[in-house]
């Protein structure tokens, strides 16, 4: 009897496993799309994935939220000839590195991508230079996003933070801050807050003294900083009252403020623009399906649609006029875009090519500084 039971249990186990293994390899097409999770993936889901799956019933899109480790994983997959990711969302600086190393595919915009509704070829419809960051040609930009600051509106009496210098001013604005745990942006802001002219920032950061000066400025607030690593963290930290000010992606702050009604406001001074877009690993399993998806997801209407869900600026000229109201709240999205003239008055000109070169070294310096 006992043995019979064991045998039955084993058989059921095997059958269960068999079912689970075969379920993954059904006839339909699976596309694994890697992105940043949270509100951002949600906006892509609504603007790109859902309509695409509705139009192509055979396709299932699987979201992987590991874009923060995108470069490392793409490299491991390509080097070992075992590519399981189909499309990866990357920032421009990482795309430069990946393209240089031959990890991601070169892209011909005019054959891969849909022209604008008026017939302008894709290569001329994306913002100038954004298809070829650092002279590479593996990147399809989706959005222009900005890293900027949010602060609690219920903490400070009187003056509210209004400039980058306020972030470093613990006397006027006491309380914990949150910054991203990496040198990018923080070193620039530190120098700007220290009075360095925007045009001199990268020249100065190219020297050891400049880096030391930036870190010295960061030292003044170091013990008040909670470091974040994922885009969803800073709005959460602000909402929980764990910090009073935080650097964050503007779209994440927007959803905390407008969709979740948190007592948070934006501080746009010295916001830093960056590009985010799609790349395709070399050796992807089903290139035709990937191209089909990309052609759909990067057309003028789809890019404009994404802005209905999150306040990032679409990277095509032809999409800008189509940006309308928020899908659920009905509010006009234009004033929430980082590119809106009211927000972009003191924008800092981010140099992703410079970072592609200096990342490795400054990561080490920054991590050393952090750990001590």
């Amino acid at each position, binding site marked *: 009897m006992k043995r019979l039971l064991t045998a039955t249990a084993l058989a059921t*186990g095997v059958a*269960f*496993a068999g079912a*689970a*293994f075969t379920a*993954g390899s059904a006839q339909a097409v699976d596309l*694994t799309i890697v992105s940043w*999770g*949270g509100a951002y993936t949600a906006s892509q889901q609504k603007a790109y994935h859902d309509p695409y799956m509705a139009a192509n019933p055979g396709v299932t899109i*699987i*979201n*992987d*939220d*590991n874009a923060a480790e995108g470069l490392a994983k793409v490299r*491991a*997959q390509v*080097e*070992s*000839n*075992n590519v*399981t*990711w189909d499309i990866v969302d990357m920032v421009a600086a990482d795309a430069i590195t990946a393209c240089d190393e031959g990890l991601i595919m070169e892209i011909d915009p005019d054959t891969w991508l849909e022209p604008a509704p008026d017939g302008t070829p894709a290569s001329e419809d994306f913002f100038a230079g954004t298809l070829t960051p650092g002279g590479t040609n593996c990147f399809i930009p989706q959005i222009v996003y900005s890293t900027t600051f949010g602060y609690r509106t219920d903490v400070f009496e009187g003056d509210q933070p209004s400039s980058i210098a306020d972030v470093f001013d613990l006397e006027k604005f006491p309380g914990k801050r949150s910054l991203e745990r990496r040198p990018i942006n923080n070193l620039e802001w530190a120098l700007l807050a220290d009075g360095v002219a925007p045009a001199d920032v990268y020249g100065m950061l190219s020297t050891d003294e400049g880096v030391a000066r930036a870190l010295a400025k960061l030292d003044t607030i170091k013990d008040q900083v909670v470091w974040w*690593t*994922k885009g*969803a*963290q800073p709005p*959460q930290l602000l909402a*929980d009252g764990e910090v009073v000010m935080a650097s964050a992606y503007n779209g994440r702050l927007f959803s905390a403020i407008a969709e979740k009604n948190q007592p948070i406001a934006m501080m746009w001074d010295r916001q830093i623009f960056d590009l985010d877009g799609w790349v395709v690993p070399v050796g992807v399993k089903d290139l035709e399906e990937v191209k089909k998806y990309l052609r759909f997801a990067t057309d003028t209407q789809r890019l404009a649609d994404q802005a209905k869900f999150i306040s990032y600026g679409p990277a095509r000229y032809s999409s800008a006029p189509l940006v309308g109201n928020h899908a659920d709240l009905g509010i006009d999205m234009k004033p929430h875009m980082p590119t809106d003239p009211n927000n972009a008055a003191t924008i800092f000109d981010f140099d992703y090519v410079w970072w592609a070169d200096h990342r490795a070294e400054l990561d080490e310096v920054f991590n050393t500084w952090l750990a001590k």
Partner: protein
Amino acid sequence: MPPPLHAPPSERVWYYAFRAICVLIFIFLVGPLLVIIPLSFNDLPYFTFTPAMLAFEEGAYSTKWYWEFFTEHSWQQAVKNSFLIAVFATLISTFLGTLAALGLSRPEMPFRKTIMALLISPMIVPLIISAAGMYFFYARIGIASTHFGVILAHAALGIPFVIITVTATLVGFDHQLTRAASSLGSSPTRTFFTVIVPLILPGVISGALLAFITSFDEVVVVLFVGSVEQRTIPWKMFSGIREEIRPTILAVATLLVFVSILLLTTLELLRRRSERLRGIRPQ
């Protein structure tokens, strides 16, 4: 035992102070696990007791985080993956581990100590090193980002636990018993199933439970070797803690505490059974 009545007061004071210290340490051990249980019923998305909760107001408590867990697809997928991976990893490590433990318990086993040390090493080598190694190596042989790869990795991590518990059961195993069985005409297979298995079964099961919980809890290897399709409960919890801390995690944590209580009870019953069996063993 409490100090006798004639003991000096200092001794009595010390006795009660010692008890008090032990109580505090037990609170430190178990308290944190108990605190999360009421917190998981918080109506608001916070990780602490709200004033309304402390006042036991109606509406301050809610089961919505449990609903979220039971209805959200990604959590359900995680549950499925966790069980699938843990069950198969356990089967592999229990089978291989028991076989090896039987060999290791025999005096004629060559290189016994070296083999033992090698088999225990997956427990000792820092997980980050194992995980990183598997990440590169499994990718090269084409099993990274598959359930199969994660199962193999977890089976390797579970082996030390099976080895330790089964060899412990076999310590003092009387090899005369098997000889007696064969001299009475029993075939080796029959001896194995009728003499050896009943004696080592409790050890095998507790080893299997430990291997199961090792896989069920494991996150570093899954993070490296697996991809989104292999995400398990700990994987979801880890990324949840790093990103949006939602009380869903507390709800999951509460459920997991009950899973461990269940496993622990099973283990305790087995231990008793084992002691009983060994008690009647002829010396």
